[in-house]
C-alpha cells in the first residue's frame, strides 16, 4: 500500500519508499539540498553558491529574519515557518516560497516545546492556506533509524491541522512543483 504513494521527500535519506529524495547529508540522494541556519542568514548567497545545492532551505527564527528569508528569491523552502503574520504570508505567496513541516522536529521534541511547535505550525498553516502558500512535509531523516514512510508524513500533516488531501499534496504535488520550478525534473 505504501509504495503506491508517489511521494517526494525534500529533506530525507534515499529510500525505495520515495520517488525522489533531496538531502542535506546523504550523497546518494537524487538532489542536494542546503540548510541555512539563523546565524548564517547574512551569508545566504555565498553559502548557496559554494554548496552548489539544488534546493535551498532556510530556518525561521524571529520576525525580522523570517522577513529576510521570505524576501530572498534564492530560498525555496522556509523551514520552521514561525512566527509569521499575514503580511509575511502574503509576501511568501507572491515570491513563490514554500513552508516546510519537518517530522523530525516534532519527533525529537517533548512536552512544552512540542506543544508550542504544533501550535505555531497550526497558525502558520492556517495563514498559508488563507494566502495560498505551498506547504511541503519532509522527514528530516539523517540515517536509516529516522526513516519516515509517506503514510506517516501524511499523519504528521493531519496532526498540525491539514486536511487529508492537503497533506497528501504536501508530499507529492507541492515538492514536485519545487523540483519542476528549478528545472530538476
Amino acid at each position, binding site marked *: *500500500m*505504501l509504495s503506491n504513494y508517489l511521494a517526494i521527500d525534500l529533506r530525507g535519506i534515499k529510500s525505495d519508499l520515495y520517488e525522489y529524495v533531496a538531502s542535506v547529508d546523504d550523497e546518494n540522494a537524487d538532489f542536494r539540498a542546503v540548510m541555512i541556519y539563523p546565524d548564517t542568514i547574512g551569508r545566504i548567497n555565498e553559502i548557496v553558491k559554494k554548496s552548489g545545492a539544488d534546493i535551498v532551505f532556510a530556518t525561521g527564527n524571529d520576525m525580522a529574519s523570517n522577513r529576510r528569508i521570505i524576501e530572498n528569491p534564492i530560498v525555496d523552502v522556509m523551514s520552521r515557518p514561525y512566527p509569521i503574520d499575514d503580511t509575511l504570508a502574503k509576501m511568501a505567496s507572491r515570491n513563490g516560497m514554500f513552508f516546510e513541516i519537518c*517530522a523530525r522536529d*516534532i*519527533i*525529537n521534541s*517533548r*512536552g512544552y516545546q*512540542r506543544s508550542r511547535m504544533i501550535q505555531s505550525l497550526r497558525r502558520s498553516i492556517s495563514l498559508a492556506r488563507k494566502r495560498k502558500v505551498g506547504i511541503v512535509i519532509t522527514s528530516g531523516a539523517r540515517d*536509516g*533509524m*529516522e*526513516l*519516515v*514512510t509517506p*503514510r*506517516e508524513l*501524511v*499523519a*504528521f500533516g*493531519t*496532526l498540525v491541522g491539514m486536511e487529508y488531501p492537503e497533506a497528501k499534496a504536501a508530499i507529492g504535488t507541492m515538492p514536485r512543483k519545487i523540483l519542476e520550478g528549478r528545472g530538476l525534473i
Partner: protein
Amino acid sequence: MEDVRHSIWDSMLSLLGEKGSANVNLKVSEWNEENNIGIARCSLDSVDDLIVSLKTMTDIQGARVNVLVKGVSGTLKSLEKC
C-alpha cells in the same frame, strides 16, 4: 509485548493526553518477537493520531527504535497483504 505496549501508551499519553488516548481505543492485538512486526487496532478516527504516537516512540526500555507503519487497513485479512 508488554514493553512495546507500555512504550506505545507512554508515547500516546505524552502526545495526546489522557482524553485523546482514551479516544484512540488502542489494542495491540499481535506482536511477533522474532521479526518485530505487530498489529495495533484503533478507532477509525484516531488512525493518524496513533501513527504519529508510534512515530514519536523513539525508544523501548532504553533501546533506540524506529517504528515503520507497513500498512493501514480496515480488515485483518487485507493487512496480511501489506
